[in-house]
């Protein structure tokens, strides 16, 4: 287990609802921020704020250096080269950058180099049935606009991906396979290799949604073998308003941009524009500089803890949450408990309480100072597939203690009684 990190996270010291101490278990939605991140952002504004990559004066120089150093830190966290990391406003924006770039390519942008991104009738896009809306709707809409067909790898009744379907779903005409590294509902960590292997066989691009993996597990893009990966800052202890797209350099240099503006260009006339190479071609306009600096500091904070240690810590929390929930009468845990030895599941538990609506479950927990997420967690199709409209999710991060996890299980045990549902 990691040492107790509460001292690093100012918000965790606050009290809620009638002076109760806060048990923050909504890190799957957004994480709290360590002082290292808050101070990095604040220092940037107080000492170095200036336009990046546009000016030649001292502040512009310092700001550019801070911005690029942060990019290097984030690249290091995922085992990538610095020039393969594109700043975006979040993971959602990163995924849309890829999908909209493919739309631009499909409409003729990008010349011969963009050929591999062109879609049309007869082509297939593959996702999975457990995707977060952010990694479903962009592909669904890309399919609708280009005439390509959307197909998906289904899950079974427990919410587990049916890996045996990969071969038949990822057909020869599949051009892109988008899937998440870990589910924000079941917590299951995806066997990436199964997808990559088949995608390579048919020559499809792989786009990984790393939102729930990068903050919690050791992630190395070279080892994973995917082509592109999106992740966000706010879930990995960084600021809001920032995220990143990682991609193989040759792909990024060929993908047409879909957001246009200053600083991303070589030459602009009224009629035509030529783009810089990646990452700059995808970074038009004034950049989220302070946020990048904050995300860089978050990456350093995580690397200092060591992602192996983080993963082991959260595996222990997962065990308490998931075993506790699965053994509780009248409570259904979405997904499987996970193997206590392996890191095959995130430190989260989404549960359905028989006879009590998730909103009501959440209200009882909130009253105890325990903040969890209720609803469909932006995964409506998965919830529908599991026969529920919503669930109650407790999710952990580096600062979550065993006590936090026990508090959740204890409070959960009292919910049905409170609502007078027969136990």
């Amino acid at each position, binding site marked *: 287990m990691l040492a107790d990190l509460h001292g690093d996270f100012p918000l965790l010291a606050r009290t809620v609802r*009638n002076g109760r101490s806060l048990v923050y278990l909504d890190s799957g939605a957004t994480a709290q921020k360590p002082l290292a991140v808050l101070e990095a952002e604040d220092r940037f504004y107080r000492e170095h704020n200036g336009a990046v990559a546009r000016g030649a004066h001292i502040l512009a120089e310092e700001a550019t250096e801070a911005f690029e150093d942060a990019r290097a830190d984030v690249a290091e966290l995922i085992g990538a080269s610095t020039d393969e990391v594109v700043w975006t406003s979040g993971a959602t924006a990163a995924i849309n950058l890829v999908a909209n770039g493919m739309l631009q390519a499909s409409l003729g942008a990008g010349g011969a180099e963009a050929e591999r991104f062109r879609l049309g009738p007869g082509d297939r896009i593959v996702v999975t049935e457990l995707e977060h809306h952010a990694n479903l709707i962009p592909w669904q809409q890309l399919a609708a606009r280009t005439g390509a067909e959307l197909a998906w790898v289904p899950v079974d009744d427990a919410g587990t991906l049916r890996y045996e379907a990969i071969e038949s779903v990822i057909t020869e005409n599949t051009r892109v396979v988008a899937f998440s590294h870990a589910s924000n509902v079941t917590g299951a960590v995806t066997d990436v290799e199964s997808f990559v292997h088949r995608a390579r066989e048919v020559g499809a691009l792989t786009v990984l949604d790393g939102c729930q993996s990068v903050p919690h597990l050791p992630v190395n893009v070279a080892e994973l073998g995917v082509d592109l990966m999106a992740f966000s800052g706010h879930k990995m202890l960084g600021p809001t308003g920032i995220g990143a797209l990682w991609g193989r350099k040759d792909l990024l240099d060929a993908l047409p941009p879909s957001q246009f503006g200053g600083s991303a260009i070589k030459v602009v006339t009224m009629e035509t524009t030529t783009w810089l190479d990646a990452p700059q071609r995808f970074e038009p306009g004034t950049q989220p500089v302070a946020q990048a600096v904050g995300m860089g500091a978050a990456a350093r904070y995580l690397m200092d803890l060591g992602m192996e240690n983080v993963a082991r810590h959260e595996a222990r929390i997962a065990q308490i949450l998931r075993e506790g929930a699965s053994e509780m009468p009248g409570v259904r845990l979405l997904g499987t408990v996970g193997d206590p030895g392996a890191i095959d599941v995130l430190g989260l538990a989404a549960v359905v309480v028989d006879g*009590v*609506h*998730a*909103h*009501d479950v959440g*209200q*009882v927990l909130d*009253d105890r100072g325990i903040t969890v997420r*209720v*609803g*469909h967690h932006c995964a*409506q199709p998965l*919830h529908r597939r599991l026969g529920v*409209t*919503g669930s109650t999710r407790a999710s952990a991060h580096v600062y979550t203690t065993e006590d936090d996890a026990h508090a959740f299980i204890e409070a959960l045990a009292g919910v049905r009684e*409170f*609502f*007078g549902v027969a136990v």
Partner: protein
Amino acid sequence: MSLEAMYQQVIMDHAREGHGRGLVEIDLPHRGESHQVNTTCGDEVTLRVGVEGDTLARIAWEGQGCSISQASISVLAELLEGESLDTADETFEAFRALMQAKGEHLDEEREDLLGDATAFVGVGKYPARIKCALLGWMALQDALIQARGASSAAVEGGQA
């Protein structure tokens, strides 16, 4: 504000009982129907009204959701079926005011109008739950607009 103050017994009872539940056909010339979704949680309600002259003669609904949303629909059905349209409007306005009151009670006149619905006073303390309590009321308002309109056709409409 304790949890018990929010989930008053009246609310728990209504959530269980569900007055007016069952989406029966309403055989009146002036009728309306509205389907509302609470987009934060996916809860839904379909609510039908029938109007006779100035009277809100029938209310019928089907839906699923949390105890707050279910109880509040049940309360409004019990409270307003058979009342005048003016009373329905005033009660709706009073309920909206109660939701905005951040947990404070309203004046006596409006509380009288609200009857059992005053039990929802605690919900006003929880902004995220106000939508739950209002779900049925939004459906009612929408359905009544149709019932009052020239056409008596039931139209699918709106969102929470």
